[in-house]
């Protein structure tokens, strides 16, 4: 498509979003014509102020070489008119007229997409849920879409990577600026496992505060369902949930402890009618997919076949799913330190309990 470099060029201009770009295409017929159009014509289409802005910006840009440079960096450009453009995204209000993608992922080869989002201030519970759900969905060959942020997003990607699965990360910055920087390795893993990094912003654009809420519409737009894992009352995850509702996506949420401030938002979603998710199977059932795996572990059976000693059973009984301090456990068992820690460590090594910040333990 010869017009593509000019689409790319328009995506670099400030003031041009999906709506105005659609208007331009309708007025001029092609992006190339619009790019070279005199200011008078642009003014007729977009009004004098914006026309002047475009003229000012475009004189510094040479579309063919700009496009060439981006291609050379190994970044794919998917435009709205192409077949490779994700079909789910096409159906939302004002889809981005192009997206940039790093990685081999091809949207035409997959048909199960689930977005997972949540707070950056994740609790140990939220971390466990994120990892568990992501791993279960990876086993079912579901493509998990998230935002590469710290907290829930990161653990969702991590869960998929642990299983060697495919995941998509939608960034709030250009693809050459991985944010947050501590997830650089994760981004590389996502790409090397056949997933993709996706952004509507040109590769050279650094992250900006206002980009992140806007990109949330792409996270939900790329998916058939959205799972809010853990979200406080005011959270970007709830913005994503609103987008998902507008876009007609299934909204699901993971229930959390009623005392936990970081679960207030997700619990509120359930009250408003979001489906309650406890496992990957719940997600599949909610979407009418068939499970590809037969086994679905039930929580209350965990540990039954592990030959626990009687003391291990006693201690395990005392550990709950929201966390209890070791101090309290020492007090309640009344055991000697050495004995207590031995049993606790055994439970930990068997994968039944897990240490959390603050000197506590939680059921794994």
């Amino acid at each position, binding site marked *: 498509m010869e017009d593509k470099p000019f689409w790319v060029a328009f995506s670099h201009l400030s003031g041009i979003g999906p709506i105005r770009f659609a208007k331009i295409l309708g007025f001029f017929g092609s992006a190339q014509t619009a790019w070279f159009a005199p200011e008078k014509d642009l003014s007729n289409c977009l009004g004098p102020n914006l026309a002047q802005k475009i003229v000012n910006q475009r004189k510094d840009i040479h579309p063919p070489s700009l496009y060439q440079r981006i291609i050379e960096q190994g970044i794919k450009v998917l435009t709205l008119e192409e077949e490779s453009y994700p079909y789910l995204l096409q159906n939302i209000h004002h889809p981005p007229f192009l997206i940039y993608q790093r990685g081999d992922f091809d949207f035409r080869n997959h048909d199960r997409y689930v977005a997972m989002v949540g707070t*950056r201030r994740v609790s140990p519970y939220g971390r466990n849920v994120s990892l568990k759900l992501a791993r279960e969905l990876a086993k079912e060959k579901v493509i998990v879409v998230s935002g590469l942020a710290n907290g829930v997003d990161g653990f969702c990607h991590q869960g998929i990577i642990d299983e060697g699965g495919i995941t998509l990360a939608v960034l709030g910055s250009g693809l050459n600026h991985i944010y947050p920087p*501590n997830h650089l390795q994760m981004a590389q893993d996502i790409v090397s496992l056949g997933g993709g990094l996706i952004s509507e912003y040109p590769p050279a654009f650094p992250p900006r505060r206002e980009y992140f809420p806007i990109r949330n519409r792409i996270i939900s737009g790329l998916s058939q369902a959205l799972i809010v894992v853990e979200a406080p009352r005011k959270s970007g995850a709830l913005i994503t949930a609103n987008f998902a509702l507008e876009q007609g996506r299934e909204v699901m949420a993971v229930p959390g402890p009623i005392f936990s401030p970081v679960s207030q938002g997700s619990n509120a979603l359930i009250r408003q009618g979001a489906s309650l998710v406890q496992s990957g199977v719940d997600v599949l059932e909610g979407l009418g997919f068939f499970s590809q795996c037969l086994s679905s572990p039930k929580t209350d059976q965990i540990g039954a076949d592990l030959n626990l000693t009687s003391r291990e059973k006693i201690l395990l009984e005392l550990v709950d799913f929201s966390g209890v*301090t*070791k*101090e309290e456990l020492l007090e309640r068992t009344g055991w000697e*330190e*050495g004995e207590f*820690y031995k049993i606790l*460590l055994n439970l930990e090594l068997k994968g039944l309990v897990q240490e959390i*910040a603050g000197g506590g333990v939680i059921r794994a």
Partner: protein
Amino acid sequence: MLSKILSATTMGIEACLVEVEVDVSSGMPSFQIVGLPDTAVQESRERVRSAIKNSGFVFPPGRVTVNLAPASFKKTGSDFDFPIALGILSATKQLSFSLAEDTVVVGELSLSGDLKPVSGILPIAHFLSQVRNGFRLFLPGGNAREGGVARGISVFGFKNLSQVYDFVQGKIELSPVSVPLENLFSVSAKYPDLCEVKGQRQGKRALEITASGGHHLLFMGPPGSGKTMLARRLPSLLPLLSLEEAIEVTKIHSVAGVLPSHKPLLTMRPFRSPHHTISDVALIGGGQWPRPGEISLAHHGVLFLDEALEFRRNVLEALREPLETGQITISRAQMSTTYPANFTLVLACNPCPCGFLGDSKRTCTCSPHQVSRYRSKLSGPFLDRVDLQVEIPRVEFSEMADKKKEETSLEVRKRVQRARALQSERLKMVGLKLNAEMGPQEIKKFCSLTAPAENLLRQAMDNLALSGRSYHRILRVARTIADLGESDAIEIEHVAEAIQYRVLDRKYWE
């Protein structure tokens, strides 16, 4: 007309003799001090002149020359006022000062002729008692008890110059000051007691292990969880100071000029908790004329750094050498001095900038980035020397109200002493005393695990994402825990417990 008086001064925490020679001859009136005196010594000319005049003596109208020998090192401070004044009086025959050979004179004069206490007396007295028996030490009255701690010398304290004159001329009788050491030690030191802390079994246990093995310790927990309260009780768990240690501790405090006037000998283990704004020089020691810093004042005791992450990085890094060697050498252009600095380090910090990460009742308001940046301050070679890292959760109120009887420091100290005895017996042949001093070689030699314990440790290293460098630390701490249990072999429960004290190695923080 020449006279010679013996005096002494301190270099580091050691002392040396200084000869004060005074020559008075006729000629143009002048008063010179030679022998590398610093400004404070030069100023003593004015004090000495007025003190002599105001005590009813005559300051010689001729040429007065004072030499401080050996002239090779710099003399500082006001210690020489008193010997210079006596030298002048005896050179002008106003005072017949016999037996000057075995009398050492130290002190500062006021203009009225009163004698003022100076710092660094115990090192001098102790030094004299080591040289030979029979020295007489003339001191300002305020210093007499400090000097009286030393055995084998007679210490006399004087109010003013006139009293010295009366004593030397035989007009009055004074008895030498001697402080009975038994009394000092029997007035047993009153430390804050461990039984005042309710609950906090983990924290108390960590203190016990720290005290036994001489390990360094980190407490991490939300504000108000009792980190400081616990740390303050560590000295009470350590064995009582021996006389030798007490003298060493007192010497350092005396040189630093922070010895309380009513305490001739410090018999309690020091507990120093400098504020986090402290400079590296104040912590380590230094200055143009090097003085001991907080780490030396904490010698044989506890150095507690509250809000450890708020300390400036260079300050913390400067601790590395003394932690390794137990002493600190301060080099300056004029001189270099070595001070002992063998202390137990206790650090306390919050788990995150706001302090409430992982707290069950309050919510942490820090962003993950803030937390990781805060944590990164705690990493690195410095933390490698801290064997125990323990999280202190906030104690629930109901637990505090609990009337259950808590163990006293005395009971714990008995166990600590037994564990220490076992260690020094075992480590005698390699010349060490405490488990914390063991290097990789000694660990290999003395920390053999039973087969199941070995197995458990290997599993834990693999599955719990413990970093490789925590391996040796776990073994060292496990050795101490086994010693506390008076067990020769390191068993499963000892290793299991030691693993619990490595919170910062665990990946769940990230």
